[in-house]
């Protein structure tokens, strides 16, 4: 059973084209659910066959492509990619289910969602830098259209801002990739885009300034995507205007590409950079800044969805912090945070979507007491919010606990700062619940109805997954830990940390 990975990517791609060609929304959404469902099944097969005890690439595939440039289609999975592939394949079918009622240009809508799946799966499995970059860029295009066609009133501004922002970051990253490519050519005298070769040869660059420049260019590309403060302002705008399905995919999957880059690209080269100490501090500062800044900005928001958007920035800050701490369990905690945040944030954005659809507004002060008419939504939203504020028993706690405890070994001051954020994180979540969902019903809202069955079902599955991975983290955590340990062997060998 070779070629499972390319099959997993090809099926939603074919599905996307079929969906574009369908004439009714029933056909389009069935195709979307079917093909993303098949992709999910394949990823579950991969997951069940995955050996968590080895850190090398599994299920590797390689096909020649542009031989003259040294580009080939190489795919494979390790403990860094496997959980995110699983996450992507969970999020997309459930998003299709959630958006079962979409009527506007349904064939394009579902087709674009499938293309997103193709893009993120490509990013998380490609082992050729050139192909990686193509998938990285492919992801942007469907998202641009999802925002600009199905978006809110200021959709054009937001879509363009999203596109330019992340595209500029991608270009900076591309320059760095080319530099690595050139560097390898100089050493081996062959053209080769193989990711591991390029990263391995990074250490052979002589100029330490040049090393740092490449490092920073790559880091910039990933941090914008995550997004980390101060490169984050595209995110709230994009979310405010994006349709719910777009927001879910953006927050649950696209942001994870940035974090993935940290583990796949940044950590392997960090010990060989010109000034690793300073770069670690830089990452740690950006991580903690994102945690606290995201939290306080979330506190200031009046729009529920914008608040959730800022909470993503805060949660992704934990990923940067855990990665920067360079302790095996802090790094695997950071990986776990990526996985967990993908599940949790989906519920949060879905809650915003159901409320917007039913009540016609997301402004917290204009809501109030909606639990009275939306009990199912209130229940699921409360569960999601509790998960987001780090309640034990849910997946977010495992991640944040691992990050906080283990980062303390190398970055104690930063951990203490991050701990301050926890109370305020609970604060904005509960404040929003109290004002929007509980209390006396705001009669001005008129008669509102609860979420549709498919929406409730989709959210409920996410909640069950959050609880499952909150009680039993080992299935994904073990493979993460294996790879985190392998990554950090080199860090210790280089004496970056002792």
């Amino acid at each position, binding site marked *: 059973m070779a070629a499972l990975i390319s099959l997993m990517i090809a099926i939603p791609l074919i599905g996307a084209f079929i969906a574009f060609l369908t004439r009714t929304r029933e056909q389009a959404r069935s195709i979307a659910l079917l093909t993303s469902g098949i992709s999910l099944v394949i990823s579950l097969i991969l997951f069940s066959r995955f050996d968590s005890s080895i850190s090398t690439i599994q299920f590797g595939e390689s096909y020649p492509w542009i031989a003259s440039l040294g580009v080939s289609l190489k795919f494979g999975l390790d403990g860094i990619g496997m959980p995110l592939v699983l996450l992507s394949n969970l999020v997309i079918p459930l998003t299709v289910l959630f958006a079962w009622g979409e009527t506007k240009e349904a064939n394009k809508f579902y087709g674009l969602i499938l293309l997103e799946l193709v893009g993120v799966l490509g990013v998380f499995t490609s082992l050729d830098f050139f192909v990686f970059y193509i998938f990285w860029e492919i992801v942007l295009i469907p998202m641009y259209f999802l925002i600009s066609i199905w978006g809110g009133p200021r959709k054009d501004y937001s879509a363009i801002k999203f596109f330019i922002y992340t595209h500029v970051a991608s270009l900076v990253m591309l*320059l760095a990739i*080319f*530099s690595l490519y*050139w560097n390898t050519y*100089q050493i081996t005298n062959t053209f080769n885009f193989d990711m591991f070769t390029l990263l391995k040869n990074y250490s052979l*660059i*002589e*100029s330490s300034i*040049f090393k740092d420049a490449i490092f920073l260019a790559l880091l910039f590309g990933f941090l914008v995507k995550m997004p980390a403060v*101060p490169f984050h*302002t595209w995110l709230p705008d994009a979310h405010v205007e994006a349709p719910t399905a777009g927001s879910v995919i953006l927050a649950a999957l696209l942001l994870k590409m940035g974090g993935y880059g940290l583990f796949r690209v940044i950590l392997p080269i960090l010990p060989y950079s010109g000034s690793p100490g300073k770069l670690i501090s830089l990452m740690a500062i950006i991580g903690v800044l994102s945690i606290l*800044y995201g939290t*306080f*900005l979330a*506190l*200031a*928001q009046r729009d529920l969805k914008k608040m959730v958007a800022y909470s993503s920035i805060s949660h992704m800050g934990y990923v940067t912090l855990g990665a920067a701490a360079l302790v095996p*369990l802090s790094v*695997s905690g950071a990986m776990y945070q990526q996985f967990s945040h993908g599940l949790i944030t989906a519920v949060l954005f879905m809650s915003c979507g159901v409320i917007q659809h039913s009540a016609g507004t997301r402004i917290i002060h204009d809501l109030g*007491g909606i*639990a*009275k008419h939306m009990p199912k939504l209130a229940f699921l939203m409360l569960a999601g919010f*509790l998960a987001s504020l780090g*309640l*034990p*028993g849910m997946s977010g*706690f*495992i991640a944040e*606990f*691992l990050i*906080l*405890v283990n980062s*303390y*070994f190398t970055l104690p001051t930063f*951990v*203490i700062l991050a*701990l*301050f954020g*926890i*109370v*305020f994180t*609970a*604060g904005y979540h*509960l*404040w929003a*619940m*109290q004002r929007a*969902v*509980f*209390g*006396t*019903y705001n009669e001005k809202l008129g008669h509102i109805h609860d979420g549709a069955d498919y929406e409730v079902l989709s959210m409920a599955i996410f909640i069950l997954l959050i609880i499952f991975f909150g009680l039993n*983290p*080992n299935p994904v*955590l073990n493979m993460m*830990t294996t790879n985190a340990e392998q990554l950090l062997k080199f860090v210790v060998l280089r004496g970056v940390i002792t």
Partner: protein
Amino acid sequence: MFSDFAALIVLLPVIAFVLTLFLGKKLPHGGAYLPIAAIAGSFIISLGIFLQIYPEGIVQQSIPWFAGMNLGILIDPLAVVMLMMVSFVSMLIHIYAVGYMSHDPARPRYFAETSLFTAAMLSVVLSDNILQFFISWELVGLCSFLLIGFWYHKPSAAAAAKKAFLVTRVGDVLFLAGIVLLYVNMSDIITSRAFSLAPGNFILQFKSMFDAIPLIDKTQLTYITLLFFGGAVGKSGQFPLHGWLPDAMEGPTTVSALIHAATMVTAGVYLVARTFPMFVAAPDSLLVVAYVGGFTALFAATMGLVMNDIKRVLAYSTVSQLGYMMLALGTAGAVVGAKAVGISMFHLISHAFFKALLFLCAGSVIHAVGTNDIREMGGLFGKMKITATTMMIAALALAGIGIPFINIGTAGFFSKDAIIEGAFEYGEKTGDLIPYGFAVIAALLTSIYIFRLWFMAFTGTPRSERHSHESPGVMTGPLMILAVFALFFGFSQTGFYHYLETNFELMGVSIAAHEGEAVPPPIIVVLLPVIVGVLGFLISYAIYHKRMLDMSKLISSQNPLYKLLLNRYYEPKIGADLIGVKLTHNVVAQSGEFVDRKIIDGLVIDNIISNTLFQLGEVVRKLQTGVVQNYASVTLLGIGLLLVLLRIKFGGT
């Protein structure tokens, strides 16, 4: 053997939670019998384990979890007495709630949540490691949030639920920080090979923690214990994180009874007791525990004097009594070591009986008269004889009334007086009599406020037109059972102390015994707690029953002291308004928003970067031809040029 089923102590109420939540609507009484049966099962198993392990056995079970940590069960004397108390009192409260909540349409949700609440508390008690303890502790907090906000459509209930969660969250973060610090210190001594985990032991297990105490740096140990205590301060409503507890009255009265007696607030005291060997090794922390506890005992009692809401009086009473328990751990801990755990836990359990009774009586009264305000009650004695009598028993127990020397008295007489005497002993040894002073004055105030409440509610002329009646048997039954315990539990004192004395030795942890033989305290010290208790009774009798003193001068908004107490030392204003809204939201969050919109987006992105690019674009626009091939070739040319430049600059060859 019962110990094989130890996990069911927690799992039974969890199963009841799920079943009641989803099936409760279809069952009689909102499915109340499911949690009652489940918790009765927990109680029976706990009792069975107690009988099995008495006098000096322990139950330990453990399975690995994630990242080198474990899930496990530790039932030692400390845990087993707690388990029996929590499940027993919770069961009685659940039975009472069948009557009390009989008219509420949301009963299934109520019984599901109280069942989970009990499960979480039982899980706190039998955790064998600090992480599982913390997780259960947080779930206790979650359930209290859900139950305080049970009537979530009431804005005040929603606000109180949030306040409870956030204020305790401050403590939780400190607790978590303590765990972080502990983990790091444990890892360090393991890495440096100074310490190795015993086979089958895990890093955050209590046993491993205690074994490592001598190897952990003393300053670090002080920090760790102080941070743990920070968690306890939040959960157990100690000063300055006490404010959430009186507000938590927004939930049903049965929830208050659960929070104040069986679950939640005692978890803080239990945390200090559970990790007591660490506190003993960090005397500075013990001193902080003693002072915070003593001060809270007095501070909360002063507010209890002036509250008019029957449940608020009881809430401040709880805060004050929890202060006593902390005081016991702090003062007696410094004098008699591990015996302090017995003294404190004895009061915790005796308090659980009489405080649950007080709340359930209050609920019975509220049920009958339809108000919480004791100024609108009065003359209820004739109509509610069982409630009035059982509440008097509870009040006598709270005030610690009994007869010294022949040792006959209420539960509180044994448990509280032991704490006050312990504080005196501490004062004698260290020359620091301040905690003792706190304890004695608080005892006087306790007696005044509780009898004030009783006289105002049950004697005098009725101040309400409402036809009041005694509650049904399903409610008075639990009252009478609890009254029996409030009266007679005290007689188990000697056996109880003896049973808990060796608690930590059973785990192989020895706590340094203190020098010197116990000297019986002077007679006046033995008598004083009872004297102030009786004095308080007489004062209240004179003022509120016989009306011998006119209080209207004192109780007026002109009196600054009265105003200060009635406004609860302005704690809600300082906490919620000043720190919560003004500082956090208006200052910090809003300035963040300003930076985001005006500086990062406005100044940097829009003005500097966009404008520069726009100018550049104007120049480029003149060069553009609109032919795709040209763009492509320019792009390629650009990349090629870049590669060449890079090569020249850095290539070397």
